[in-house]
């Protein structure tokens, strides 16, 4: 008897929720803002779906209606990826400067 692959994905999903639970509780409260900006950046991995959609057009017709939505999603996700990681980096950099200063 075969197990539906959905069950495997569901297992990954549920185990990841548990991992998330324990990992996030260990985040220090002073870094809660960077936590939000970095989770925001990584959730933009949805760009994977956007790329699949964008590349689905035929060579004669790059912009059919479904790939247009893909391209739009790419732009949105890319804003988030670059914006999210860079702003997180900028914030974390501020937590560093002071430490070096003190030494």
């Amino acid at each position: 008897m075969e197990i539906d692959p959905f069950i495997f994905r569901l297992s990954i999903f549920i185990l990841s929720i548990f991992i998330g639970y324990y990992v996030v509780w260990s985040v220090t409260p002073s870094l809660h803002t960077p936590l939000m900006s970095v989770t925001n950046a990584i959730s933009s991995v949805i760009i994977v779906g956007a790329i699949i959609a964008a590349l689905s057009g035929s060579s004669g017709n790059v912009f059919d209606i479904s790939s247009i939505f893909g391209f739009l999603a790419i732009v949105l996700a890319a804003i988030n990826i670059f914006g999210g990681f860079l702003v997180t980096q900028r914030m974390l950099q501020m937590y560093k400067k002071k430490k070096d200063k003190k030494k």
Partner: protein
Amino acid sequence: MISADLSAIFYLVSGILFILALRGLSSPDTSRQGNYFGIAGMIIAIIVTFLSIGNFSTSLAYVIIFLIIGGAIGAFIAFRIPMTAMPELVAGFHSLVGLAAVFVAIAAFLNPEAFGLGYIGDIKLASLIEMSIGAAVGAITFSGSIIAFLKLRGIMSGAPITFGGQHFLNLMLGIGIFILIFYLCNSQSSNVFWALIFISFLVGVLLIIPIGGADMPVVISMLNSYSGWAAAGIGFTLENSALIITGALVGSSGAILSYIMCKAMNRSFISVILGGFGADNAAENTKEKQDQKPVKSGNAEDAAFLMKNASSVIIVPGYGMAVAQAQHALREMVDKLKKNDIKVTYAIHPVAGRMPGHMNVLLAEANVPYDEVFELEDINNDFANSDVAFVIGANDVTNPVAKTDPKSPIFGMPVLDVEKCKSVLFVKRSLSPGYAGIDNELFYKDNTLMLFADAKKMTEDIVKNLD
């Protein structure tokens, strides 16, 4: 190009890198490394996607162009945004994730073959359910975040907008979403799909408008959580483990943050969502206190004198500090105090500001060392042994009423024991009550000196008087 199995393994790797990215945030020292893990995970995920499709036609060139356009916009925003605008930036970013999820779901619905989900009009049932959930949650995240953004930006009033039958309407629309998903599964009709998305947009708006400004920390965390669930929904549709893992991580992260924020306000999640904090008792309470009790007020000179003669000072920042952009002036003041061998620490309430960790970031921006900044439970006992508490822009989180008056709407909320200090300096523009709409008893205490002024201006004046 590369097999589905191999790409699945790479997606798993990028999922693990994302876990490490969050793990890094457990301390400021490891946090930057964590961020690099996150970036690496993202790069792997994107490259693997290109390779697994193996379509190197003109489309790919466009993909890269659009990627660069979006990336440039994102980078521009990231470098230009002032730290005080972080809450609205995060809200804005959440809306983009939500909208991207909606677009991907639409693309998958219009062209299921590209995703291996079946054919138009004959999409696999499970995929259809997954993509409708992804689209619905994404749409709610999008419109909800837009409202949160407008409120935080001040374009829309931060006051709660409520009307009769609001909760009933939301309930009906919520049920409507489920009915539409059910109907969609039977009919595969695109009109039903559009209706589903439209109603979800509407729910997002209606869900956030009744929530007021100071409840924003909960709202932002909640939308953070939603954006994760939307990504996970799409992840199930695309059978992509990187997305499923990330969605689950982000979803639980946002949920935990919402929980922490609710707890810090001693309110249930449901009551925040239902909105209109203190809307009923606010008017009543302010009237009750109309018999003006005497208030001692002072100027910058008095404040400087008090602090100069203190041996320890605790600073309590709040949203007012962010509004007045007073963090740099504050840091200057603290530097002067430290030169006089006065011990200075910072006390941060979890819901100070408009998002989790908001005050910490502002202080970090002003170069305040993070080991001088303490959370509520770590510092609350120190107030009794300190000479001066300098409250700048905070209000409700210092109100002793939360401990003494069971009738007060904020009763039971953990507050900073500011009144236990020998003297309290309270920088505020007027005696008006804070967000919760209740009077702060602290104003009338004998050991409180009110400094009526803009936070930044007052701090600058104190700095001058410290010389």
